[in-house]
């Protein structure tokens, strides 16, 4: 197998050029320079889900996000989540909370009836950057 190995002394400019070429042709990401590290937030605690709670008893899962990200319901309400993504997702409480869906494939739903008031934060265990919450009022 013939291999052409570019020496490490390759200039930064050329390396960047190769990386751009690689990027344009859909080959693996290789160039550290493409990530703007300065734009990254710190690694501190994750911020709560954005937006004020919305009165709703259905939550859609679309494009790797729960929408609305925060809903408000009264005690006794059944909330229904529906996965509209092609990827599977879960609805899973943080810690020991009550939400524990099975893996939801495309089009599948999960229902849970909230019987006590409180704030119930949850996420998708498969994509844990997907976070959301249900506020249950008395």
């Amino acid at each position, binding site marked *: *197998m*013939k*291999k*052409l*190995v*570019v*020496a*490490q*002394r*390759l200039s*930064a400019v050329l*390396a*960047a050029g*190769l*990386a751009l070429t*690689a*990027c344009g*042709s*859909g*080959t*693996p*990401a*290789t*160039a*550290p*320079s*493409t*990530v703007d*590290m300065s734009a*990254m*937030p*710190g*690694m*501190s*605690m*994750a911020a709560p889900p954005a937006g004020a709670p919305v009165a709703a008893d259905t939550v859609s899962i679309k*494009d*790797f*996000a729960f929408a609305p990200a925060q809903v408000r319901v009264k005690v006794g309400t059944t909330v229904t989540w529906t996965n509209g*993504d*092609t*990827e*599977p997702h*879960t609805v899973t409480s*943080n810690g020991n909370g009550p939400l*524990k869906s*099975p*893996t939801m494939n495309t089009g599948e739903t999960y229902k849970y009836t909230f019987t006590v008031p409180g704030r119930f934060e949850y*996420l998708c*265990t*498969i*994509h*844990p*950057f997907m*976070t959301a919450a249900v506020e249950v009022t008395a």
Partner: protein
Amino acid sequence: MSEDPHGMTRRQLLRHTAWFGAAVVLTVASGEVISHIHTPGAAAEPVVDDPNALRFVQVSDSHIGFTGPANTAVTDSFTRAVNQINSLPYQPDFVIHTGDLTHLSTPAQFDQVRQMMGTMRAGGHFTVPGEHDSVDDAGQKYRAAFGKGSVGDGWYSFDLKGVHFIALVNTLSLEKLGHLGTDQIEFVRKDVAGLSADTPIVVFSHIPLFAMYPQWGWGTDDAAQVLNLLRRFASVTCLNGHVHQLFTKTEGNVTFHSATTTAYPLPRPGTAPAPAPVTLPAGQLADALGIREVGYRQGSHSLAVKDVKLA
């Protein structure tokens, strides 16, 4: 401190060189994408011809059970990785799979990966779990299939040919980012306490231990505590998966190498609304998949890392 004509201090120059010099150098020859990651003092090649050298292979993110359009045959792709390993001109000391062995943590998927890894010709087979391996049970099925010899929730360490390896689990207790937890950090503290500072350290984890793209969960919120414990060591190499693309970064004594996948690519950070599987034009998928060969010769400062696309 000497300064070069451009006003860059030697330290800055070294860091700059590390950034580009340690970057994956990519070239295409005979249709094969090859990247060599060289750091100063590393062996020029992954020391394939030296039986006394350490040689291992990293595979990652096989996602057995995935059926989406981004790769409708992930089992075939992983089979190619197995065959590629078995075709190497040497037998690796071990193969490490850095997680997301399965797509949905089903017993059948775990069984299939376990059997396929068993056919890899290597001195040993190691794994760390990905979040796809603990979808609904906090990793119980993963540990039942792969947890032998591990402690806590699946972490462990071992020594081989002068290198100390630490395999971490940062895919449980997740909230946004990867998380190690106090038990595991304490494990590392005790684990490295007796090691001399010139012992090369290699750390395996699924999710990166550096902040590659926290908005997509590509980082570990308490990784700094482990990295602090490793600060006194001359050479620390962190190998991870999760991001399905090659990426290299050096911070002080630590070099991070994200591996690619054998299943399907993910978008480059920030270039898509979400880290959803990317369906490439026909014929381009194989260019995005690969395995990684790693070599270390005793006395060298750092490891030689070579990323090879799936044959």
